[in-house]
């Protein structure tokens, strides 16, 4: 848990730099806002936990709030075509349920869940047409998959771990369904290499994180061995598609942070 606590201590006193970073405007990027999200203030969630699980759950909850807000704002634009509106409604509902589930889990264990409203998130630049909406949806879902995966080995409580895995795979279902909307060949829901053709605003989603444990989605080394050498009969693209990569908390927050424009804890649950 050492790394987690280092991450948390970095978060606690970075409010000033966060505001500076956010003034640059919303957008995905590994910006200076990386370690500047205030969802884990001293005295709130993680300080009540002896094992760090509350911190991870609140991190997950923050990402779920962000996704929920995004789908609600996206549905409100009217730009989502009728034939795929049911998919976006399904995903919005799942994200809303994830928020409720995580809040309940944290409350039930005696922790304090973070609280955001839909207005605490701004997606300016991504809500002007359906293509932009679909692009950001894919980026956020793929980020969510990497984020949950990146914390699995740090969750101590086995029931929390199982629940996180149950959410993680639903996020992956979302990610694939969104990806299918624009995939070529049609229907492919997996990440080929580090998606060199990704639209610029979401390219960072597929890049390497911090340290050896978080390679890019182009990684072919699993368990210490290069599978392009160890296995025969498969293309590099197929090998990269067959494994999704985890991402560390700082890198995830570098991607998600610029969209968090409001303050945690100053509004009512909605």
């Amino acid at each position, binding site marked *: *848990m050492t790394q987690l606590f280092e991450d948390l201590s970095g978060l606690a006193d970075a409010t000033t730099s966060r505001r500076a970073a956010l003034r640059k405007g919303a957008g995905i990027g590994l910006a200076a806002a990386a370690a500047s999200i205030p969802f884990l203030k001293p005295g709130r969630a993680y300080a009540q936990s002896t094992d760090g699980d509350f911190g991870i759950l609140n991190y997950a909850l923050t990402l779920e709030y962000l996704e929920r807000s995004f789908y609600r704002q996206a549905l409100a634009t009217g730009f989502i075509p009728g*034939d*795929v509106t049911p*998919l976006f409604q*399904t*995903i919005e*509902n*799942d*994200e*809303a*349920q*994830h928020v*409720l*589930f995580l809040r309940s889990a944290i409350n039930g264990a005696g922790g304090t869940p973070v609280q955001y409203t839909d207005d605490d998130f701004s997606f300016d630049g991504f809500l002007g047409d359906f293509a932009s909406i679909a692009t950001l949806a894919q980026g956020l879902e793929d980020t969510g*998959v990497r984020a*949950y*995966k990146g914390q*699995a*080995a740090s969750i*101590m409580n*086995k*029931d929390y*771990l*199982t*629940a996180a*895995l*149950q*959410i*993680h*795979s*639903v*996020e*992956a*279902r*979302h*990610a*694939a*369904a969104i990806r299918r909307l624009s995939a070529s*060949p*049609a*229907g*492919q*829901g*997996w990440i080929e290499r580090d998606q060199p053709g990704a639209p610029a605003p979401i390219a960072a989603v597929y890049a390497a994180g911090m340290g050896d*444990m978080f390679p890019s989605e182009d990684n072919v080394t*699993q*368990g*210490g*061995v290069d*599978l392009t050498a160890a*296995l025969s*009969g*498969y*293309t590099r693209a*197929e090998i990269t*598609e*067959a*494994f*999704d990569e*985890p991402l560390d908390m700082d890198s995830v927050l570098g991607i998600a942070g610029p969209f968090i424009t409001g303050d945690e804890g100053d509004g009512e649950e909605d």
Partner: protein
Amino acid sequence: MSQSLTDRPLPAGPASASRRDFFKRVGFGLGVATLASTVAACDSTDGEMTDDGVVLDFSNDFGVLNYAYALEQLEAAFYATVVGSASFSSTFTSDEQSVLQDLAAHEAIHRDFFRAAILGANGTPIPGLTTNFDAVDFGDRASVLGTAQVFEDLGVSAYNGAGRYIQNPTYLTLAGKIVSVEARHASVVAGLLEDNAIAADGQINSSGLDKATPPGMVLSAASAFIEDEIEVRNA
């Protein structure tokens, strides 16, 4: 037959910092000689064959890895049959063929990876399983995709249910790298069967959670397609 060199299990209980550091140093072998001897000193029993079939001991990470290996064998064999069928190109659209060929490759990679991983860590992979797909009509789109959906959803719920038994955090993360790909498969297959669907009915509960199924129930469901007897212990 017993393939175990030693019989000392991995330490039980939640991952400790010291154990995590240990595994960080040791890595995850795949054929690295120095690692193999180190891991062998810590671990051994795994999926073993008895006269009655395969035993998977979940008190040991190799038992869980062999469980995943068994399920990946099943999926890989299924998709190999799908794409190898004489009626493949006449049964599916070109886009569907592309998807199914990808699934065949991914599952075969998972299968080969687990075998190599278990061997590389000086464990013993279970033998190749004998599959039986007599119930599937490989010339019928709905039969193939319906079976694919069963296998993919079963795979997702199996990994979700097995995660809590994995003691080595490196293995847990590796399982995570694979389960999300299985979930992507499940979503795409659901979408091929029904517009806008991401899962079969009932697969995602009212809290937005995927299933997490205990290994005994998973193997019971899979037994219709596997000739070998597989027994799970300590899970």
